[in-house]
């Protein structure tokens, strides 16, 4: 995260403070945080449930964006990780009677471990080969779950319970929302930290040119598989939380369309942008809810409505908006910055040259 404070001299003090305040990212983030904490208290149970979904989808989008946006490895099978996460923690709690605080990380770790294994063939593959392999992964996982009836319940599915921590059961959607929110914040912080470490920079390097990255001494095998593992971990945790939210999971719930939905999150939100991932997940889920509530007849007549929406968004974004929502925000910020500078010039004030950091990475 960057915090830029364009310093202007020659303006009245109040104007200066206001400018600094408005330009401060911390202020906006703080307000957003406050909104996320306060808002659900005033919403209906269903709306809180949707907000839980937003948080969970944001986790997936962050995980997928680490893999696709930063490390440049395509995946069109993330529903597989989502399913693995959900089933791991459900089985851990139901069959092995493990507590939630073990089941949740376990879901992430197993999913991440499988991500690591999926990353191994990815070492030899790139582009669409990888797309095919991950596509296959996303379709095979629900099939395997379906056919392992003894453990997974087959068609009947499983009913993962709402979690209990220190004797408190998160049975209401509101309490579950706060739990999910806390986990999202944690995952968000880890993602931001991770992208600033050597691993994050190695991912970007190998995305831009594998050969150049290798020449700089980056171990491609290690960092590629690591990207898959991290992405699998994030999606697995999200899958687990989703399972405990809806408390009823079936192999049929993990479809190719879901993988495409995850993909659409980050294409619409913006590749290689953590805020973009969240924006994409929130935007698409909200649009979908508006469509299904605003036009109730539409979905019954046209059951592929979400799918066609994802498809159209994918096409439009790839063709006309390669930066996604994050790109639009970036452009708007640049425009405002340039306008402000021009105005300051016109007023005869001196401007300390602070260029907006053209840093799409974080």
């Amino acid at each position, binding site marked *: 995260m960057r915090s830029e404070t364009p310093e202007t001299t020659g303006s009245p003090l109040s104007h200066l403070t206001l400018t600094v305040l408005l330009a401060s990212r911390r202020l906006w983030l703080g307000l957003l945080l406050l909104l996320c904490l306060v808002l659900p208290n005033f919403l209906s149970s269903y709306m809180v449930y949707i907000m839980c979904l937003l948080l969970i989808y944001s986790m997936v989008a962050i995980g997928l964006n680490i893999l*696709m946006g930063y490390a*440049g490895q*395509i995946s*069109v099978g993330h529903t597989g990780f989502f399913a693995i996460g959900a089933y791991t923690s459900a089985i851990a709690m139901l069959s092995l009677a493990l507590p939630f605080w073990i089941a949740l990380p376990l879901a992430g770790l197993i999913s991440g471990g499988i991500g690591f294994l999926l990353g*191994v*063939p990815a070492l*030899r*593959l790139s*582009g*669409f*080969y990888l*797309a*095919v*392999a991950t*596509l*296959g*992964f996303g*379709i*095979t996982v629900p*099939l*395997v779950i379906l*056919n392992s009836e003894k453990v997974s319940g087959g068609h009947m599915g499983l009913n993962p319970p709402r979690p209990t921590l220190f004797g408190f059961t998160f049975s209401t959607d509101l309490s579950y929302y706060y739990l999910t929110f806390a986990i999202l914040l944690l995952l968000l912080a880890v993602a931001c930290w991770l992208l600033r470490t050597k691993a994050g920079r190695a991912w970007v390097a190998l995305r831009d040119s*594998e*050969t150049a990255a290798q020449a700089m001494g980056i171990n491609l095998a290690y960092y590629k598989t690591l990207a898959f593992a991290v992405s699998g971990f994030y999606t697995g945790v999200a899958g687990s939380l989703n399972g405990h939210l809806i408390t009823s999971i079936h192999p049929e719930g993990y479809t190719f*369309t879901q993988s*495409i939905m995850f*993909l659409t999150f980050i*294409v619409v939100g913006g590749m290689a942008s953590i805020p973009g991932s969240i924006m994409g997940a929130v935007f698409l889920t909200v649009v979908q809810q508006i469509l299904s509530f605003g036009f109730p007849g539409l979905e019954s007549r*046209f*059951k*592929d*409505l979400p*799918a*066609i929406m*994802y*498809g*159209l*968004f*994918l*096409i439009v974004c*790839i*063709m006309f908006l*390669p930066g996604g929502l994050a790109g639009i925000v970036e452009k708007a910020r640049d425009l405002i910055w340039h306008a402000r500078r021009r105005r300051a010039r016109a007023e005869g004030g001196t401007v300390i040259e602070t260029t907006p950091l053209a840093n799409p990475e974080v």
Partner: protein
Amino acid sequence: MPQAVVSGLEAGVLYALPALAFILIYRSSDVMNFAQGEMAMFSTFVALAILNRGLPLPVAFLGAIVFGALLGIVTERFFLRPIEAASHFSKVILTLGIAIVLLAAAGFVFGYDTHPFPSAVRGQPIRFSGVVVTPNTLLTLGVAITVMVAIYCFFKYTMAGIAMRAIAENATAAQLMGVNLGTILSLTWAVSCVIGAVAGLLIAPKNFVNVAFMFDYLIKAFAAAVLGGFTSLPGVVVGGLLVGVLENLVGLYIAVEWKTAFAFSLIVVVLAVRPTGLMGAPLVKKV
């Protein structure tokens, strides 16, 4: 066992055709067309719509093929060409988007019901030393082989075919030799989509037709293309036949439920052990 092999061969040519369609486009424009299956499905539905108007089967076939060709040209000209300079990544996502929109559009236009599709030939199954072969199987094999031979001749003897090969080899040099890249790419997409449509029309009488009927075949076609190596046309045909026969043996000796999972395992194993496939040229990375 021989019966399984024969069914495997029949399924195999039906995997090989879409696989050929894939690699035609891949070789000339480096794009993996993920919308292949949906395009074939849509073309087959067009044939069905023509049949429902009471028109004869050949007209329906012709209609589907013309529609397929147009679909290919439109996709290339208005979707892929504007983002020519974009990364592979974007193009893969674009074709995925097109696939999903086509799938949903088919559901919207033609509905989600499953329809029977009439077979072009009827008659008693032929018994041959314990193996039963239906006339439809013979027709499938015949048409598929004809298409493959036609593709071979097209690439070997026609100007357009040679231009396509030239572009696959080196697009810049081909352009300097007077090949119109845009026209040839549109033509490649048209040919590819026609092959896909033919595959759809051959598959339709075997399985009932619904919006998802090509999906399974597409996955196997991917496996076939990967197994054959993405650059070799004969390799892909061999790959298709191998996938068809092997999965039928898996169905016979292990369990039918694992047939689809088998195709994926095959993809992953082949890619891990021999990424260039059985007959593909070794990958050379340009810097």
